[in-house]
């Protein structure tokens, strides 16, 4: 169904389609681009009306946000440590579990599958209250280990669920052939199965990391002054008296830079992962 050349009806249609596409581009990309622009403005330029696109850019905001008093470097570090640790732990637990769920036979298989699915449905706000109380009692609030452990809650079911669909894509005969080749179950998993889901592991890791980096609720309730991920640090720039618009923009750009870069670099993988997760679905367990 390509817009054929020539007939004016077709040309008009192509034009309309391109307009719509352009509009989409604007609506989705613009806020981020506008934020980027704002981060180079002075506070006064930001408040100007009509809004200026041409202005003399300044790096002051970034300087302040990186090196100055409102530096979010410690927050970036917190985010990095917690997200990376949570992602590694999640994948460590999730990949074997997903393999068992997808390919092996054991008692109460359907029940365990349903259980894992159900845990994903729990809204986080229900869990933070007990988390808060428990962590407070054992002194786990505002610690890296505490936060990382709690991040596993939402990462684990999601990662298992996603990996299961990747494992299911491999033909059943792979394990049989490997077993006949005297590989044994563990070596079969290591030498034959895992290499074939490398792509799936990459996609799942990306998603888990993104979710962890962007987490807010758990970070704000269970973190504190020591461990304050970057999502919480955004509020540093907003107080009752005033909002530091330009600095907020710069801070947000920095905070989102890793995530945006990963998103752009791995966009094909991400789109594939979204569709795998959505179309294959968890309803089959």
């Amino acid at each position, binding site marked *: *169904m*390509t*817009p054929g050349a020539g007939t004016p009806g077709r040309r008009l249609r192509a034009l309309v*389609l*391109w307009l719509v596409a352009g509009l*989409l*581009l604007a609506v989705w*990309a613009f*806020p*981020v681009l*506008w*934020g980027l622009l704002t981060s180079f403005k002075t506070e006064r330029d930001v*408040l*100007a009306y009509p809004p200026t696109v041409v202005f003399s850019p300044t790096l002051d905001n970034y300087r302040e946000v990186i090196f100055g008093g409102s530096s979010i470097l410690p927050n970036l570090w917190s985010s990095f440590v917690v997200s990376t640790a949570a992602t590694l732990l999640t994948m460590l*637990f999730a990949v*074997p*579990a997903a393999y068992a*769920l997808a390919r*092996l*036979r*054991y*008692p109460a298989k359907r029940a365990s599958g349903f259980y894992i699915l*159900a*845990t*994903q*449905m*729990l*809204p986080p706000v*229900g*869990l*933070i*209250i*007990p988390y808060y*109380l*428990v962590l407070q009692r054992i002194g786990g609030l505002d610690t890296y280990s505490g936060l990382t452990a*709690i991040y596993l*809650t939402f990462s*684990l*079911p999601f990662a298992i669920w996603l990996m299961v669909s990747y494992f299911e894509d491999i033909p059943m005969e792979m394990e049989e052939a490997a077993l006949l080749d005297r590989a044994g179950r563990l070596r079969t998993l290591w030498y034959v199965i895992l290499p074939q889901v490398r792509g799936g592991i990459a996609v799942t890791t990306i998603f888990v990391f993104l979710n962890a980096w*962007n987490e*807010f*609720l758990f970070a704000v309730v269970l973190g504190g002054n020591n461990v304050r991920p970057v*999502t919480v640090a*955004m509020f540093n720039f907003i107080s009752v008296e005033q909002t530091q*618009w330009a600095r907020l*923009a710069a801070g947000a750009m920095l*905070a*989102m830079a890793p*995530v945006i870069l990963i*998103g*752009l670099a791995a*966009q094909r993988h991400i*789109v594939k992962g*979204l*569709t795998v*997760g*959505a*179309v294959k*679905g968890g*309803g089959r367990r």
Partner: protein
Amino acid sequence: MRTLASQERRFALALLVPALLVLLLTTTTPLVYLVWNSLHRLDLGMPWLSGFAGLENYVRMGGDPRFWNSLWLTVVYTGSTVVLQVLIGLSLALLVLQIPKGQGVLRVAAILPIVLAPVVVGLFWRTLVLAPDFGLVDVASRALGLGSHNWLGDPQLALISVIAIHTWQWTPFAFLVLLATLATLPPDIYEAARLDRAGAWQRFFHITLPLVRPAIVMVIILRMMTALSAFAAIFAATGGGPGSATEILNLYAYRTSFTELNLGYGSSLAVVLMAITLAISFLMFRLRRAR
């Protein structure tokens, strides 16, 4: 003596049990604790009142207008965002399907809202898009002669604004998934339909829609889950306000627990939210399997 099966069983359990233990620890145990708390009076602002309270919190909920308001807002919020996402996502996917060259760029643009942290999205919109005077929307509305408004401060407009924010962030998800699904539809059935004299609308209705339906259902389920537990964006944009204008059940539970420090009542609110979420997801999966 069935060694083959039992070996497989042992191996499977060795792989699965660690994850199950973690989940048990981090979800089921807190859940039990949450329900336990909901049956207590636990107000950090009035600690002397603490004690077992039975179903007192739930009874109170029944007569709490703020609760019913939050429930209503949850329904409106979830319903409208999901419907909008699917409608807009599907329409855009259908349109974009016809310009293969533009799809690459659009995929990149669609990725951006999805990878951003919801809290940052909320802040963005609050400061740069919806702020009176210099926010993008306000500039546009003034240019169109609609005047300047307090998009987040006006109770009427606030709900619309947060719905818009959520829809903006998550429509690309529906768009990408539906676009991918549409791209996998075999072209020969359309050719057959054309030979059978089916017009564009009929082809959409009788061929495209039924084939895309499983994907749409899955998108609806996933987006519903996100909408029900949406927190960060609303918190960042309005904090639940003005007043209770955007206080969906999620936020009400949070505020009660951590702002007003009434953890007992907050727990019961959270339990109700959980029950609703589980019920809906159960229903949706049943519906999906029935198809």
